[in-house]
């Protein structure tokens, strides 16, 4: 029997890919292992224990920062995904119109500017607003996160829309569905994978942000990344590994759940 020849095979690609996956998970694995470290430093394994999980759990500042991150990220990601979805709808599925590519470029603008620049600009602007209005709540962080999350949500949603068959919506309209009903029953369910991808990207990006947050946070508005940035001068305690491990576990669970659900659907 001859060895099967396939155009889907490229020499070395599987090796590179598997190596890539290995390397991708090596740091994660290291992190998880050190989270269970009994010793005090991150670099050396001195037996296993749960002490850092306990320490993290008892460290009010870490828990506080974590909860704040988990407040900002979902809100910013939801808003960003919502407005990005609307904008994506407005910039696809029509013949290109004047100003369309401008709109697209505009929405993608936050990608083009180094973070530090946006950070300084927002620091100045928001400070004025804080002084004028006296409001110093989380709103500023949420607004800023929303803005830089928009392009990350916009890109996958728009990509999905671009390949979506327009006749399905026409068919719905033909079958007496008013525009909103068409959107709810046809567009939205079909767009859902794109929206979820956009949401996930936005969520991750918000969760990661440090520079902009560092500049515009008010008193008591530490997020997990800014809290860690503060630790840069000293050393990373294994508490961070513990927190991250828990977080990783939770995200794997959430994402798995999403994949299982979406698989059942189609």
């Amino acid at each position: 029997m001859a060895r099967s020849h396939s155009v889907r095979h490229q020499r070395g690609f599987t090796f590179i890919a598997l190596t890539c996956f290995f390397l991708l998970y090596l740091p994660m694995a290291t992190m998880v292992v050190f989270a269970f470290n009994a010793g005090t430093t991150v670099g050396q394994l001195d037996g296993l224990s749960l002490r850092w999980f306990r320490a993290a759990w008892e460290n009010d500042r870490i828990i506080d920062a974590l909860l704040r991150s988990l407040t900002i990220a979902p809100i910013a990601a939801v808003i960003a995904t919502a407005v990005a979805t609307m904008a994506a709808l407005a910039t696809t599925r029509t013949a290109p119109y004047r100003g369309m590519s401008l709109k697209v470029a505009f929405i993608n603008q936050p990608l083009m500017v180094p973070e530090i620049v946006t950070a300084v600009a927002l620091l100045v602007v928001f400070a004025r607003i804080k002084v004028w209005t006296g409001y110093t709540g989380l709103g500023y962080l949420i607004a800023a996160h929303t803005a830089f999350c928009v392009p990350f949500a916009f890109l996958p949603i728009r990509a999905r829309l671009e390949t979506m068959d327009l006749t399905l919506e026409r068919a719905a309209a033909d079958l007496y569905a008013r525009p909103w009903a068409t959107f709810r029953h046809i567009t939205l369910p079909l767009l859902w994978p794109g929206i979820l991808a956009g949401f996930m990207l936005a969520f991750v990006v918000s969760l990661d942000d440090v520079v902009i947050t560092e500049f515009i946070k008010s008193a008591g508005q530490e997020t997990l990344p800014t809290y860690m940035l503060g630790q840069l001068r000293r050393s990373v305690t294994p508490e961070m590994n513990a927190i991250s491990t828990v977080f990783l576990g939770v995200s794997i669970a959430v994402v798995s759940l999403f994949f299982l659900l979406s698989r059942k659907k189609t």
Partner: protein
Amino acid sequence: EGELNIFNWGEYTSPELIKKFEETYDVKVTITDFDSNDTALAKARQGGNNFDIVVPSATFVQIWINEGLLLETRPDQMENFKNVDPRWIDVEFDPGRRYTVPWQWGTTGVIVDTDIYKGDPNTSSIFLDPPPELVGKVNVVPEMGDVMTMAVLAEGGKVCTDDMEVLKRVHAKLVAAKPKWVAMDYGSIEKYTGGDYAAGLAWSGAAMRIRLEAPRFVYGYPKEGYPIWMDNVAVLKSAPNAENAKLFQNFIMDPENAALISSYARYANGIKGSEAFMPEDMRDAPEIVVPEEFVALGDFSPACPPEVNDLYTRIWTDVLK
């Protein structure tokens, strides 16, 4: 009753201290971190952040005062002021302590792994002209002020000098030295203990924490001269909770409380009698208690004038390009 918002360096504030303060005065304390004097200043200057207390380094206190950002809380009239070491009362940046209270102070020196380097650690040539065994193993903290000051002193200049001849030599020295460094990082403990760095420019407290983990490391006071610095607790003019902030200033001048600060971050604190409450290992630690023969070599860092900062920046940028 009430709240207190502290704006401080990351990992610098003892949780025990805060807990004690909260329990004593029934105040809810929130800590927010900054990672550089400049960010802190920029944020405070723009305003609107609700911070009550800020902890600038000595070099920045004058700027904060001049910019009108600080409340004149008159710590010198506070109950616990009597505990302040006289050495830290008539300081140049806040003569007589009308605004600020000492938080911690320390020195910037060098640290070296004696397993690798057997020579005299008390010299800045550890990083400015590393011996062959240290080449490629030196870490330098990425603080322009500390590095430039150390280099200027090594070249025989004065702190904040604008002497072009000295600066020329400083520039040449740094340019020559940089390739021999492995990193410019806030060297975290495990980088040293783990063998990534064998020597470096470091702060005293950090050096001590490293030594506690790996006794082969020693802290050196460069004989060419080294900077002394102090971080200070001040109250912002815009503080929403100024009264609680004053309570805090007074609170940390109590030796027992000051000792809590030091035992967490491992720097000295400038409050007389606090040593008694410190852990054993700090009372005679060579990093904290400057040995007699090196005391005179220390130079307290002032804020350099803008023109000098400008010069330093250009040299710094050129070195790092």
